[in-house]
């Protein structure tokens, strides 16, 4: 048997500095420069960067074994139907077909789920969304496998789709997506699960906690603004489709090479479905072509393993692009109603929000998304009286789950829109109104959680406002259409083009919340290779493009004073690293690598003492590691690691946990549910062709506090990428669903921003360390995704005068033509 794809350890040594596009203002505490080249605070090159740029990196879809079979998936053509029967005879008889499996062939548990096990491995009883897997085939050629799917006969009794999430949330007569008596596991008692509701979470503070009505609280305000908002279904739009290779093993188990965000949570779902103990389901991370939350839930994992175990041959499954749109969860679309009241001098008095999140056919992370949407639903503002009601519901729409921003994105668009409307009512600058109500360190969120880390929101807003403006558009002279709305399509030479400026700020929880036992594991080994000290770092953390592979090496260099660091491939031979999501891996796996390095260092110092190198004359001597040597503060170099270790190795494994968090109270929504808060402020400048409804974002500048910069270049990439994804949600990215069917499952019609849509960004990074976090760092990936969307929409409103309560904003909305 040949080995699938080269997965040699990636060497991380010989770092070269990359220029940093990040402006760090001088007042902020400077990053302490690492004494080891390529350490924390510098920008060493990514070990996988050159391979990716030159197209040589092996992604999960590139894996190959000579004797492998190809898997394919038969999907439901109906969003909601009862399965009366499945006949696989015609497919089984096809030459080249090795297996055709249905739900009857699932060896163990018939359902899996990230948080709640309600999703069938293969549909039985009913299908609940269009594209739900019903049968799987393994064949010796992908085309044969696809043709075999055509020969599987499924007898469906078509049911009415449950397409309206508001009806699903509130209408007791709405048909149930998951019917009673389906033998589902019990729901968390605090989630108020009932009917089609996956979770309902209220939040009440101030007079609302004492039972006051909206009318009573409204009387306290001079100015009231209300708004109804709609957020379309955004896709993560990763470029590497769902894919993996399952290889049957001699011990009856299976080795799965897979692109995922969390190896161990996949393992914990796959093993019961296969009826195998976890140790017989071994996972190795394959090259991940983007994730953004869409790989938290499983796709083809169990299917490939089932086919491999049944056929005794390696089985590869790769979704095509259209299938991928049906094969992963999306961002929850939402319907939201907001009301804000303020005094004449611009102090927020109260706010209410009703948030309905469409979770689609299966629970995925809907309950946790509701937890975020409810707790952060009113944003980073001090509001004496708050009332939030957040609902996550089942429908027969495409399943929705994790995506960068995770429930905070939908709310941020609304509360920022509300603040802008309030500012207009009060005649205040939108930044000024935000500053008057800004949270800061010591503030309490709507859930009563005290912000016990720096939160320089007012300062960040001022900085965003004071950033230099882009130059005005030239009134005369030659026109470069690429700089105008419409771009190369040549729709305007300046006719109808108006400029607008808008601001946005958002508050995002970082790391896992609500009492989750969130941890990561790292194994670090120090030994001498070829006469030089070398470090190996082994974790199960998923590198999904974010650059954790670089960060792990940097931390090892900084903590162990050794330049030569090898980051081993991620697999389940080491303990769980948790998910590459919630902006948590620098914090969590970074924290675990650091803890393991400190343990290795302590062992090294024990060796130094055991060797008698620290004499009785120096009992309190401070030891350190630098340049591959053990050094004493007082006496300089004591011994080289090469001499000290010889042929022996020092290896330590550590688990790292962040501080504990609490569940939200099911009635009042109070509780310290979050680990850490992140914030970004955006200022957007747009040119809008008001006659055609086309937009060119001229500037999208950001101020973000990250606590401590670990890798300036990668940080800039995170802020740029998050901002671009927010731009996409503001202006173009939407999975259009009607009658529970996706109408645009392709990159021809699901538009993501191009280089002509995203301006060069000015980024100002602040470093106010979080005392609870390793190095004081703050997760950086998600906050920009929150704030860029409302900033852009506010700028479009400023240019057009249109209310624009729906995202993405469509040309029709700007020119005022009804749609839908």
């Amino acid at each position: 048997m040949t080995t699938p794809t080269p997965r040699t350890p990636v060497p991380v040594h010989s770092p070269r500095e990359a220029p940093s596009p990040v402006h760090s203002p001088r007042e902020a505490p400077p990053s302490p420069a690492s004494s080891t080249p390529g350490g924390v605070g510098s920008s060493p090159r990514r070990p996988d960067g050159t391979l990716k740029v030159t197209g040589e990196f092996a992604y999960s879809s590139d894996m190959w074994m000579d004797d492998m079979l190809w898997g394919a998936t038969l999907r439901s053509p109906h969003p909601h139907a009862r399965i009366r029967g499945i006949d696989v005879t015609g497919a089984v008889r096809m030459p080249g077909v090795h297996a055709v499996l249905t739900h009857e062939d699932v060896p163990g548990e018939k359902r899996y789920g990230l948080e709640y096990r309600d999703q069938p491995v293969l549909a039985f009883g009913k299908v609940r969304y269009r594209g739900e897997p019903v049968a799987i085939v393994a064949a010796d050629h992908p085309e044969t496998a696809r043709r075999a799917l055509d020969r599987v006969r499924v007898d469906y009794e078509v049911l009415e789709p449950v397409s309206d999430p508001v009806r699903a949330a509130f209408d007791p007569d709405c048909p149930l997506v998951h019917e009673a008596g389906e033998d589902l596991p019990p729901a968390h008692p605090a989630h108020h699960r009932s009917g089609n509701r996956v979770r309902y979470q209220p939040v009440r503070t101030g007079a609302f906690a004492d039972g006051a009505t909206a009318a009573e609280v409204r009387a306290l305000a001079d100015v009231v603004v209300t708004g109804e908002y709609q957020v379309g279904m955004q896709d993560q739009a990763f470029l590497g489709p769902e894919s993996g290779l399952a290889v049957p093993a001699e011990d009856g188990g299976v080795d799965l090479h897979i692109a995922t965000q969390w190896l161990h949570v996949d393992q914990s779902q796959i093993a019961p479905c296969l009826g195998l103990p976890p140790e017989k389901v071994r996972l190795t991370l394959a090259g991940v072509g983007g994730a953004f939350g869409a790989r938290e839930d499983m796709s083809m994992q169990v299917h490939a393993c089932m086919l491999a175990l049944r056929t005794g041959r390696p089985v590869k499954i790769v979704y095509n692009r259209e299938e991928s749109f049906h094969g992963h969860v999306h961002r929850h679309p939402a319907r939201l109603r907001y009301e804000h009241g303020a005094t004449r001098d611009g102090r927020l008095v109260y706010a209410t929000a009703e948030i309905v999140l469409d979770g689609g056919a299966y629970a995925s992370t809907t309950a946790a998304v509701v937890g975020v949407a409810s707790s952060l639903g009113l944003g980073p503002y001090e509001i004496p009286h708050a009332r939030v009601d957040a609902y996550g519901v089942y429908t027969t729409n495409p399943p929705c789950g994790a995506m960068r921003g995770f429930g905070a994105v939908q709310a941020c668009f609304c509360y920022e829109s509300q603040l802008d409307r309030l500012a207009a009512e009060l005649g205040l600058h939108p930044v000024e109104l935000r500053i008057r109500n800004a949270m800061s360190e010591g503030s309490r969120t709507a859930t009563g959680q005290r912000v016990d880390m720096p939160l320089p929101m007012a300062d960040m807003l001022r900085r965003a406002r004071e950033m230099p403006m882009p130059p005005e558009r030239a009134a005369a002279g030659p026109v470069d259409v690429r700089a105008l709305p419409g771009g190369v399509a040549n729709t305007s030479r300046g006719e109808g083009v108006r400029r607008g400026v808008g601001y946005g700020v958002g508050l995002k929880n970082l790391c896992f919340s609500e009492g989750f036992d969130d941890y990561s594991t790292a194994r670090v080994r120090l030994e001498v290779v070829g006469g030089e000290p070398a470090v190996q770092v082994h974790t199960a953390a998923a590198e999904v493009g974010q650059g954790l592979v670089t960060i792990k090496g940097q931390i090892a260099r900084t903590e162990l004073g050794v330049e030569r660091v090898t980051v081993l491939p991620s697999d389940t031979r080491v303990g769980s690293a948790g998910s590459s999501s919630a902006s948590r891996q620098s914090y969590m796996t970074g924290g675990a690598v650091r803890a393991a390095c400190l343990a290795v260092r302590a062992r090294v110092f024990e060796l130094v003492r055991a060797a008698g190198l620290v004499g009785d004359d120096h009992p309190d001597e401070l030891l350190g590691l630098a340049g591959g040597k053990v050094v004493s503060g007082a006496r300089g170099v004591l011994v080289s690691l090469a001499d000290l270790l010889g042929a022996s190795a020092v290896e330590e494994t550590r688990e790292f946990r962040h501080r504990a968090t609490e569940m939200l109270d099911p009635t009042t929504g109070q509780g310290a549910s979050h680990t850490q808060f992140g914030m970004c402020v955006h200022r957007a400048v747009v040119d809008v062709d008001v006659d055609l409804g086309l937009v060119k974002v001229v500037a999208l500048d950001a101020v973000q506090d990250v606590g401590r910069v670990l890798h300036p270049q990668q940080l800039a990439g995170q802020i740029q990428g998050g901002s671009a994804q927010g731009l996409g949600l503001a202006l173009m990215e939407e999975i259009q669903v009607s009658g529970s069917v996706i109408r645009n499952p392709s990159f021809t019609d699901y538009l993501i921003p191009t280089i002509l849509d995203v301006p060069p960004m000015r980024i100002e990074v602040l470093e106010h360390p979080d005392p609870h976090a390793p190095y004081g760092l703050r997760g950086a990936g998600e906050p920009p995704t929150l704030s860029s969307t409302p900033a852009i929409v506010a700028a479009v409103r400023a240019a057009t005068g249109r209310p624009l309560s729906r995202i993405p904003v469509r040309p029709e909305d700007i020119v005022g033509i009804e749609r839908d």
Partner: protein
Amino acid sequence: MEFLSPATWEEALAAKSARPDAVPIMGGTDVMVELNFDRRRPAALLDLTRVPELREWAPDGDRLRLGAGVPYAVIVDRLADRAPALALASRAVASPQIRNRGSVGGNLGGASPAGDAHPPLLATDAVVELASVRGVRRVPAREFYLGPRRTARSDDELIAAVLLPAPAGPQQFAKIGTRNAMVIAVASFALALDAGRRSAGTGIGSAGPTPLRAPEAEEFLAAEFDWAGGRPPSPAVAQEFGALVAAAARPIDDVRGSAAYRRHALSVLARRTLGWAAADYRREMAACG
């Protein structure tokens, strides 16, 4: 699936005659997408990439004969003076990679109403050259598009070239998309003024079952345009021209946009391109005078 790969034009015509169901493929920017999405399983593919004539262009009388396989990138870089509207449209096609492979022949073969090349061909009164073992015939673009993805091409014919009249006045092309590059047209419009004949040509894309003309708008403009001086059209004339173009469209609601928006956008594009064309017209008159 059979894969036919003729080395000469004669072989290609013979192959198409023998296998009229063979799908011609050149850049593959449409055909391969359909195959990859499993929307089409043709019995045979006819690969035309080895036929050199298809990538050539040369004068043909006072027209330009553009091989059906000349990539859009070449039209943008080399032919902007001889085919201004088509060059503008070619610049708006997809991405640089696609422009290096895609060609006008592919647009005509697929005959999607959203094809960017169609409106300029209609506006400039271009001619499509079809060939088969039976001979060569030339069909005006204005008679080429018969119905949704249906054209005047017979099953045994290949698209050899398009013949583009020498520009006799300003030409414009503009296209709506919801991002600033790499987008299928929501609606597009081409305008060509002919100073010699004192006539106007129009082409509408992505707003009907086929690419369309706006004949009433053409007649209106021919009568109202200041052919002597190229004065900027009055707001009333521009408005009416835009309204007539919009009225000629037969758009539908789909994922890319609503019918109402498409009509509205076409009226705006018609007004704007008319203004630009008039300015170009004055500039050309000044240069000649």
